[in-house]
């Protein structure tokens, strides 16, 4: 069943049917489901070159540290394969396995040696943080070097999507790329029509190599006008249509900044904008929205770039919306991640950290830009041209947020996929650079699409019934944007993907998500509901922007509600569906019986009421029954009962007294009682040994449960 013969691969996994592994325990469950049990490598030559980087394929007696309870560790074996880091816990019956894709690894850090070994910290792009403790320094170093190299591929061919090969035939793979059709999306909007058509000008990517081949422009503009306009725009990204509102003919167009400098102008570009405005017969002007802060835009003028001069363009209203650039956003998210990864922070540390990261302020500014545009289109019926500098980051964010606000279709699963495919993938959002798929310029990395997904999440919080999908869908997309598991988010433009023959060599994510769409459904979705008709009008009061715990603390299970309303409702809905089917079946049967026994019909009039058991709730009882570290580390970690059954719990109790710290706190003036001031717990935690080595001398005497 397993095609490859990988020496570095753990035996256990080779012989085991991966389908039998509990997918839930593996953060990367999807990958094996897709493989259908087989892990094959398509490009062995690449794979062998990867193997060279693996200095240490297997390390025994590695400890996996539970991030939330540092005292809880699991011993097991660490394997490095060409594509994954795998940790297999040993001992316990339900074996804990941890699979981490190399492409998801953001960075690897060695920490100072501790008593138990050499800690290795792996930060992932999906915000997972994994800590191993490796007994030997040399092993730790080898793993570190290998992982550092493996997580920073130099060539596209090294990426996982080129070796990932689910058991599907060629036709099926090709079909997977046809799952979304942007032409169909434009025709859903009502295009082409008498005002707008597809221009063939960029078929060969000659006018703009970062744009897609098919672009909508007003019918009235001639090819020379397009070429002229593109020459006046950064990287040739001339104004083109992103969204068309059938009802009032208003459009959202996008471009890059004009090369206006301090005084330059371009007749073709002016004609272009004029044509866009005119193709919306209902309005007498159009908005030009520059999503940058005014200062940034002005600075660009010195470099011969800049923004539209209202005097040169007829009937435009120019508007700055201050969204910060990718560097500010990268730093902001870095700070946010640091805050989210704080271990037992105080409330103040967390809130101030959140504030200092400025993350929510940035989200708010993107949302406000989206609201401005959506209102212009829906309420004023005015077309909008959006640009930033290059028109592939902020412009993509703002156009897509506005689209979600405007059009209920983008609030459906399929619509969201289409939107990402259209405004992000096809319009040349530089996924490879922004996500750091390849080893390269760190300054190009920025969480631009994270911010878009988060804006949608913030909207979902305000409009719980308006979205067909739930947050798991967004998180799944986020994961796959970074995972390089599928070809969709590889490269920086459509042209690059074509040159790399992505469609022939890799698989598309969308059919995979579509197959699993039951997991992504929002049970509260009401398509017919009034709030879901047309424009969403979100509030932008500061308290409406919340910290997205499910994303940033995705892997910290203990931080999330122990019972999920969402899961619960999904179960109920599923059951309801079954009941409906059952009901139909019974009614049919009864009808048949009735026909046959029309005479005895009257006998059925008695109504039988029965008390039915309610739905079975998907309550994770083991998790619900796990206390936290309420003493912030002092309690010696919560009792290690994570996987124990009810009966075993009693015996697993840890002794509270036994883990009393040797306190020498300055404010612990109560010498007589010998009790530490537990109020200052969070500060003392870091210095605690990670093992039960700090036993108090009098623990036997003071621990009533010892016996």
């Amino acid at each position, binding site marked *: 069943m397993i095609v490859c013969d990988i020496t570095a691969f753990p035996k256990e996994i080779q012989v085991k049917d991966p389908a039998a592994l509990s997918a839930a325990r593996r953060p990367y469950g999807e990958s094996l489901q897709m493989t259908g049990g087989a892990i094959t490598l398509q490009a062995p030559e690449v794979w062998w070159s990867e193997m060279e980087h693996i200095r240490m394929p297997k390390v025994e007696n590695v400890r996996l540290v539970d991030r939330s309870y540092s005292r809880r560790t699991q011993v097991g074996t660490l394997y490095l394969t060409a594509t994954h880091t795998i940790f297999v816990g040993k001992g316990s019956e339900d074996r804990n396995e941890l699979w981490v894709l190399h492409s998801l690894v953001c960075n690897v850090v060695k920490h100072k040696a501790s008593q138990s070994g050499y800690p290795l910290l792996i930060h992932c792009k999906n915000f997972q943080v994994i800590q191993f403790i490796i007994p030997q320094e040399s092993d730790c170093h080898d793993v570190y070097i290998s992982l550092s190299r493996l997580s920073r591929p130099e060539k596209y061919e090294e990426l996982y999507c080129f070796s990932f090969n689910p058991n599907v035939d060629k036709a099926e793979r090709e079909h997977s790329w046809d799952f979304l059709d942007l032409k169909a999306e434009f025709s859903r909007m009502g295009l082409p029509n008498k005002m707008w058509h597809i221009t063939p000008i960029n078929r060969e990517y000659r006018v703009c190599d970062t744009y897609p081949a098919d672009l909508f422009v007003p019918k009235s503009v001639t090819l020379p006008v397009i070429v002229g306009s593109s020459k006046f725009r950064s990287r040739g990204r001339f104004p083109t249509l992103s969204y068309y509102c059938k009802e009032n003919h208003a459009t959202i167009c996008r471009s890059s900044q004009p090369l206006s400098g301090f005084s330059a102008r371009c007749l073709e570009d002016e004609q272009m904008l004029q044509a866009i405005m005119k193709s919306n017969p209902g309005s007498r002007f159009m908005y030009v929205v520059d999503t940058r802060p005014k200062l940034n835009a002005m600075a660009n003028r010195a470099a011969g770039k800049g923004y539209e001069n209202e005097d040169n363009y007829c009937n435009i209203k120019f508007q700055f919306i201050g969204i910060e650039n990718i560097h500010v956003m990268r730093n902001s998210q870095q700070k946010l991640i640091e805050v989210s990864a704080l271990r037992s922070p105080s409330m103040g*540390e967390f809130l101030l950290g959140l504030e200092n990261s400025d993350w929510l302020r940035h989200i708010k500014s993107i949302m406000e830009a989206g609201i401005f545009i959506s209102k212009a289109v829906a309420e004023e019926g005015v077309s909008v041209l959006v640009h930033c500098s290059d028109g592939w980051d902020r412009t993509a964010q703002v156009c897509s947020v506005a689209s979600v606000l405007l059009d209920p279709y983008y609030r459906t699963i399929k619509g969201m996929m289409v939107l990402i495919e259209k405004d992000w993938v096809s319009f040349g959002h530089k996924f490879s650079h922004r996500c750091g798929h390849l080893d390269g310029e760190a300054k190009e990395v920025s969480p631009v699409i994270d911010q878009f997904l988060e804006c949608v999440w913030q909207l979902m919080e305000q409009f719980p019934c308006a979205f067909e999908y739930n947050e798991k869908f967004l998180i799944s997309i986020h994961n796959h944007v970074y995972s390089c598991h599928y070809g969709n988010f590889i490269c920086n433009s459509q042209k690059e993907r074509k040159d790399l023959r992505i469609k022939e060599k890799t698989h598309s994510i969308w059919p995979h998500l579509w197959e699993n769409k039951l997991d992504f459904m929002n049970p509260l979705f009401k398509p017919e509901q009034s709030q879901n008709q047309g424009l969403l009008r979100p509030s932008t009061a500061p308290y409406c922007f919340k910290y997205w*715990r499910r994303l940033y603390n995705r892997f910290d299970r203990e931080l999330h509600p122990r019972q999920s*309303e969402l899961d619960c409702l999904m179960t109920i809905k599923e059951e309801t569906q079954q009941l409906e089917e059952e009901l139909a079946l019974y009614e049919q049967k009864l009808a048949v019986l009735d026909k046959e026994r029309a005479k005895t019909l009257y006998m059925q009039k008695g109504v039988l009421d029965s008390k039915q058991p309610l739905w079975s709730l998907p*309550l994770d009882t083991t998790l619900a029954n796990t*206390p936290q570290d309420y003493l912030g580390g002092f309690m010696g970690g919560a009792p290690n009962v994570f996987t124990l059954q009810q009966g075993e719990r009693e015996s697993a109790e840890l002794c*509270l007294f036994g883990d009393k710290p040797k306190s020498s706190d300055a404010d612990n003036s109560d010498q007589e009682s010998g009790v530490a001031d537990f109020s200052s717990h969070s500060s003392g935690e870091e210095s605690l040994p990670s093992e039960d080595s700090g036993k108090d001398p009098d623990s036997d005497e003071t621990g009533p449960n010892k016996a």
Partner: protein
Amino acid sequence: MEAPGATCLRSGIRICAVLFVTNNSLRRKLEKLSTFVSVTASPWMEVAIKVAILIQICLPSVVKSNNGVEETRKWRCQVSCTAQNIMEFAELIKTPRVDGVVLHRPFMPTVEGTLCLTGHHLILSSRQDNTEELWLLHANIDSIEKRFIGSLGTIIVKCKDLRVIQLDIPGMEECLNIASSIEALSTLDSVSLMYPFFYRPLFEVIEDGWQLFVPEEAFKDLESMTDEWRLSEVNKDFSVCPSYPSLLTVPKDIDDESLCKAASFRHGGRFPVLSYYHKKNGMVMMRAAQPLTGTNGRRCKEDEKLINATLCAGKRGYIIDTRTIAVAQQAKARGGGFEQEANYPQWRRIHKAIERSNVLQESLIKLVEACNDQSHSMDRWLSKLEASNWQSHVKEILTTACLAAQCIDREGASVLVHGTEGTDSTLQVTSLAQIILDPACRTIRGFEALIEREWLQAGHPFQQRCAQSAYSNGKPRSEAPVFLLFLDCVWQILRQFPCSFQFNENFLIMLFEHTYASQFGTFLGNSVGERVKLQLSQKTVSLWSWVNRPQEMERFLNPLYEPNNLVIWPSVAPQSLLLWEGVFLRWNRSTKCLDEAYQEMVHIIEYNKELQNKVNSLRRQLAQLETEDNPLQTP
């Protein structure tokens, strides 16, 4: 329709009530009368009108009743018993009625109508049948602000439930009169003038809430599990401990005399008593006030014996002091202190840092200010939220409660909880620990019983604590949102275990409202002793009498509830603790979409149940038919 109680009508008493009667035909009748009265007005009539204002709330019941005579009698009885107070109210209400007042509320249409002041309510009615009337208890008003633009006055009314409304009143004098009346009426000192003493329910009391949760019943439950405890009457006349109830559960082996001695060693006489018995392992949680060790380390053998009596042989217990060690040390100088290790060798003390009540009040004021900040800057919001410290208090209280629960359930040790007075942070901890440990406390009845036991009987001074809320201008005396913080913590656990509670968020919000202003007597007074003196159970209606009616209960039921017999351990990480928007942002946002989502959830669940019933009944029908047909049909 003939208005009942013609004699009363003749005396002119009911005339002012005309303003508030929604029944149109009756209103017209009464309106005619009122013109008549105003023509023949006399000093006596004036008083009568004030009486009518005072008791107007009784009117609907009079009107709606089929048995007019009896109701009228009840009502007259009410008039006579309150006659002595009438003049007080009458003096306070200078302008009982103003026309053309405009009411502004966020996220609601403005209403123009007639404003009326009565003894206990501020009422605004547009006098149209389909518009909602505003009925605001004076007791709910926290503070008011006046503004004038020309002769148009504006009163901004800030309520204890955190709502802020604006009333535009034409006429400077009227506005001033109304404002001063509101100020006076909302700060009445005498408890016996409070609305619960005047309120007569419009519903039939089926189950008297005053009789629902008596200590004897609770003790019977305990007796069925253990015989280590007894019910002591030592505090029968509230002399040993004025803030304790008359019946207390104490270890069986400790006699009343020892209790008295222990009481003299504890702040306010609050000697250690049983708070909770953990059935699973027989461990207990007790609560008390701080011991009065003072600077010279006083000790009390009886106190030591009392708490040691709760330990099993060879076992140790924990004393959770809700104060930091520094605060506890300082308390020594004022005669308080903490249990010295030497005198309590079987106990290990843990200090936590739950703030004292004045700090909490300040925190609430800051939080509400942050929530009402209209500036749309993200930074200001987060730093103000942080600076309020509210969420930190929530975290600290929850953490302490979890710790107590962990000691009991996981360490198998008994716990004694106290702070300084044992009436605030102590109760927060003991009651939250029970919610974590005991599934019964997560039902509606169980939660009511918990509030009754751990808050009302245990002597949390509700009246002092809830005298003012977040908009109070004056210096706080002993106001503090101790109970609100408790509710917030419960809400946090509810968010984390949305299927484990029989009640929903509305239930908690309702309780918050009623602690600050209510037509029910439940939260009046500061202790059982005070409540007995006030004769609340005879003179007022219990909140529980109302809540437990099936019609009302429906609003408070959590559709997702599935009894969960496990201990539920909440996360106390800052990432997991949320701002309780249902209370703090309640009036600052439109809840339309959230309400729709809730309705949809209810709908999904109800539809599921309905289908289940249908399927079941069909299944049975089929089975029946098939067995009947059996010889004939073989599928």
